[in-house]
């Protein structure tokens, strides 16, 4: 799976971010994308083939696998990575829109199209809120779908066409659990970084606004 597009997107986003934003990009890239591509993808590669049930009844294994894994962990992880990186596109689009406007009117409308102020600040804040929201949504989804972040070695299944209850064994449960915890830890780190950046920006610009108003009053 070629993730080059995400890498290019993230490097484009890097230009218009604050310092904390750049740390977020680095964390997402090194600890999430790279770990996904280099390590995690291979663990879940043959999960269906290696899922073994103690029965010869045709169809039973398929049905049990589908019951316990409606969406595979690794697909959810990939979706999360994509959704979480996308709000940053809003900022890139807004800067491109500003530059386009300047070109269209053929005059310098903005002191610096890439500087975070005015409308771009709103877009940036919205993108931060969206990113944090999506992270939380996916974490909750993981938790609800899989009853916590544990992966048991053995699951008991009794759906038709399985006669009675059969034992089904999941492959590599410990390794999957370790990487799942890793995913949760990096998600939480990203949430913390996003909230930090949000508070920093709000604080900085409210101070700026307050000072401007104070200066105006004095004049």
């Amino acid at each position, binding site marked *: 799976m070629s993730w080059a597009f995400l890498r290019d997107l993230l490097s484009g986003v890097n230009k218009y971010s604050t310092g904390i934003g750049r740390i977020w990009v*680095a964390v997402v890239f090194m600890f999430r994308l790279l770990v996904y591509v280099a*390590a995690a993808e291979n*663990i879940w590669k043959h999960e269906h083939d290696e899922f073994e049930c103690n029965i010869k009844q045709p169809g039973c294994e398929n049905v049990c696998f589908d019951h316990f894994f409606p969406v595979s962990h690794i697909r959810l992880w990939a979706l999360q990575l994509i959704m979480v990186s996308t709000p940053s596109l809003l900022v890139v689009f807004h800067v491109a829109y500003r530059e386009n406007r300047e070109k269209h009117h053929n005059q310098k409308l903005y002191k610096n199209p890439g500087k975070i102020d005015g409308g771009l600040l709103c877009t940036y804040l919205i993108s931060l809120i969206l990113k944090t929201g999506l992270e939380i949504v996916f974490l909750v989804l993981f938790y609800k779908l899989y009853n916590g972040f544990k992966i048991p070695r053995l699951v008991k299944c009794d759906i038709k066409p399985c006669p009675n209850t059969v034992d089904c064994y999941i492959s590599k449960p410990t390794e999957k659990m370790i990487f799942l915890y890793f995913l949760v830890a990096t998600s939480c780190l990203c949430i913390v970084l996003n909230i930090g950046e949000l508070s920093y920006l709000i604080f900085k610009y409210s101070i700026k606004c307050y000072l401007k108003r104070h200066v105006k009053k004095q004049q």
Partner: protein
Amino acid sequence: GALHTILGGVNKHSTSIGKIWLTVLFIFRIMILVVAAEKVWGDEQDDFVCNTLQPGCRNVCYDHFFPISHIRLWALQLIFVSTPALLVAMHVAYRRHEKKRQFRKGDQKCEFKDMEEIRKQRFRIEGSLWWTYTSSIFFRLIFEAVFMYAFYFMYDGFRMPRLMKCNAWPCPNTVDCFVSRPTEKT
């Protein structure tokens, strides 16, 4: 590809021993991991054979002996060990950004003629950059030690045995399980 570009960027601002470290890392570790090791560990679960027909016994025994695969631990180790170098790259970028800001404001102290010179400038390792560089080396050492210990602890030394005896449920009694390519992995 991306790790390569990042490490190349770090290369510019390292000492000569740092450059040797980067070369070793790249050629002897990353390339070997990608080119050779992945194939050696590629079929590890498929070729892990246990002397029993009991369904599920193989899965459970494999999981018991390999809580996390060597190759994944190796990849994680490489990622963690390369990360402190990022810190140095970020610090350099920050310094460069500050110089650019000074230059744009038309500061008298700034001695560069144009932006190109600033971009190409090689920073000397002094002041706060020295602290960043030293702490990055320190963290690299810590991560290497932690991962080596994790390898040693999880796999009882660095040898890969040919035969493991397993009696986790649902295996009836003790079964013999055979690891694929133990010598090559060792």
